[in-house]
């Protein structure tokens, strides 16, 4: 389609909660017939890992609703992050929210193009074999090639 709309997203976050916005927007835009590209950089690369271990942290996140009021020092205790992650995943499943795995697979299925920032791959000593298949590796110049054609560009 010559007049196909295009969406370009830069995804920079690597927590369980912030893995959602780029994937929700990408899959929805694809459903609206957009051609979508996500440029994953810095912590966003965690979403591309074959062995994904995304977590959510209550620490330094006063906006996160807690089942019981919890002092910051308690939130810093070992195991709190894992507990918060388990609870969030349960909550999401009970509310019919898709998992990150499900959304990522749907994004790939609907031809969302994934680009990983090669500079940050090197910075974090990741190997291409650590990351999922079907990913392009490139730099900022490649993003601008995509973004200049895009109707919408988002930085997340």
């Amino acid at each position, binding site marked *: 389609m010559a007049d196909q709309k295009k969406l370009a997203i830069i995804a920079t976050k690597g927590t369980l909660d912030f893995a959602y916005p780029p994937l*929700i927007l990408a*899959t*929805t835009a694809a*459903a*609206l*017939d957009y051609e979508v590209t996500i440029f994953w950089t810095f912590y966003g690369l965690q979403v591309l890992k074959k062995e994904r271990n995304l977590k959510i942290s209550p620490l330094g996140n006063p906006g996160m609703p807690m089942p019981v009021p919890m002092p910051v020092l308690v939130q810093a205790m070992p195991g709190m992050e894992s507990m918060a992650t388990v609870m969030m995943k349960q909550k999401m499943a009970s*509310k*019919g*929210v*898709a998992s990150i795995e499900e959304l990522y697979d*749907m994004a790939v299925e609907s031809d969302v193009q994934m680009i990983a920032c090669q500079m940050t791959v090197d910075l974090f000593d990741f190997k291409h074999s650590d990351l999922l298949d079907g990913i392009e590796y490139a730099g900022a110049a490649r993003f601008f090639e995509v973004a200049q054609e895009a109707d919408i560009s988002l930085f997340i």
Partner: protein
Amino acid sequence: MADTTLDAKGLNCPLPILRAKKALKTMEAGQTLAIEATDPGSAKDFESFCNQTGNELVSSSEENNIYHFEIRKT
């Protein structure tokens, strides 16, 4: 009667839209898709979905917290 039905009850944003898109892909132009959803956001979302994809929102209603949509593929 719709040609195809989609049960999106219990699913949350963006799943009802994604499932609907998937269902529409397998359908012929002129055929209709009936959707049931429980996500309160879906009322506006299906309207926007149809506005942007050119498919026709034949009907949209709510009863006992179940949202019913009928979309005709164009």
